[in-house]
């Protein structure tokens, strides 16, 4: 198969990887570190990478695993410092001008990031990045059935949040 070129095959994935890492870590600096580590690791394994169907899916799997590792480490640090883990969703960064300007969009941003990691990652891949069930299953190393169930749960939770807003009248 064709040779992997870092500049043309891996580097263009940077923002997709960053968005996924940010959705998991909820921290811009950490997401950038994760993206960097993902690209370096993919490059080191380029011989293996030449054989995979989708370089992108392969990189996103690495990215998610690295992001989860970091989150675990960070959470462990927080727990050792104080008993109550900090709710990170409200303090999660706004990586876009429009998000900062628009109060309604900021609200949805918080809704997404308050969901458990697995659910918001599924929403990120399926609804924001537009990945198919198959690709999502490949990236998350889950069965397609499991992806569908988790996706359904995520949308249901989002819907409940919206219904709450409706009944409270925001």
């Amino acid at each position, binding site marked *: 198969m064709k040779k992997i070129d870092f500049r043309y095959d891996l*580097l263009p994935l*940077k*923002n997709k990887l960053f968005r996924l890492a940010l959705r998991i870590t909820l921290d811009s600096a950490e997401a950038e570190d994760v993206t*960097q580590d993902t690209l370096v690791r993919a490059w080191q394994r380029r011989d293996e990478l030449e054989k995979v169907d989708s370089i992108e899916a392969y990189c996103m799997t690495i990215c998610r695993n690295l992001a989860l590792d970091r989150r675990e480490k960070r959470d462990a640090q927080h727990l050792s410092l104080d008993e109550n883990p900090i709710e990170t969703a409200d303090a999660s960064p706004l990586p876009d001008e*429009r998000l900062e300007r628009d109060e309604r969009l900021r609200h949805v941003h918080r809704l*997404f990031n308050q969901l458990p990691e697995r659910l918001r990652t599924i929403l990120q891949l399926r609804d924001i990045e*537009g990945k198919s069930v198959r690709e999502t299953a490949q990236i998350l190393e889950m069965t397609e059935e499991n992806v569908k169930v988790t996706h*359904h749960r995520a949308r*249901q939770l989002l819907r409940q949040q919206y219904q709450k*807003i409706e009944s409270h009248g925001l």
Partner: protein
Amino acid sequence: MDYKYIEQLLERYWECQTSAAEESILHAFFTQEEVPAHLAQYKSLFEYMEVAGGVEVLGEDFDKKMLKLVGEQDTKDTTAKIEVRAQRTSTIYRLRPFFRAAASVAIVVLIGSAAQELFEQKDEVQTWDYNSNSYKDSFTKSEVDEALEFSLKGLNTIGNSLKDADLVVVDSAQTKTK
């Protein structure tokens, strides 16, 4: 206006029963400027997904950093490759500078000798002596005599043979007239 279709689609959207095409209809509907009041609350959801999918934070600085990071490993790899190659094509590769030197020396010598020849020829033309007094024979008297004798002999034999031929012709003419 009737928005039943959109409402139905939305209902199926929450249940994850919409196809990709139907979801793109919902996206198109909710990202337009005017959305009816009772559906307006969902506008932010679809707008957010659109915005979040287009977030591009990492720019050229990141590219430079990454290329530098990966480039270090790259240069190590390429130097290793060159070493291997040098061993493979060693003799020809090593002698290449000598071939070049030899070629350039040959060219210089060629041009030099050609130029020399040209100048020498010019000298000869300039010193050409037209004076007949200073002319000297390049051969001896006896040689001239010999040559003269030889040519005279030759002429004699030719003369004799011509005479003989004449006689023969005359004889044959006389015999015909008889």
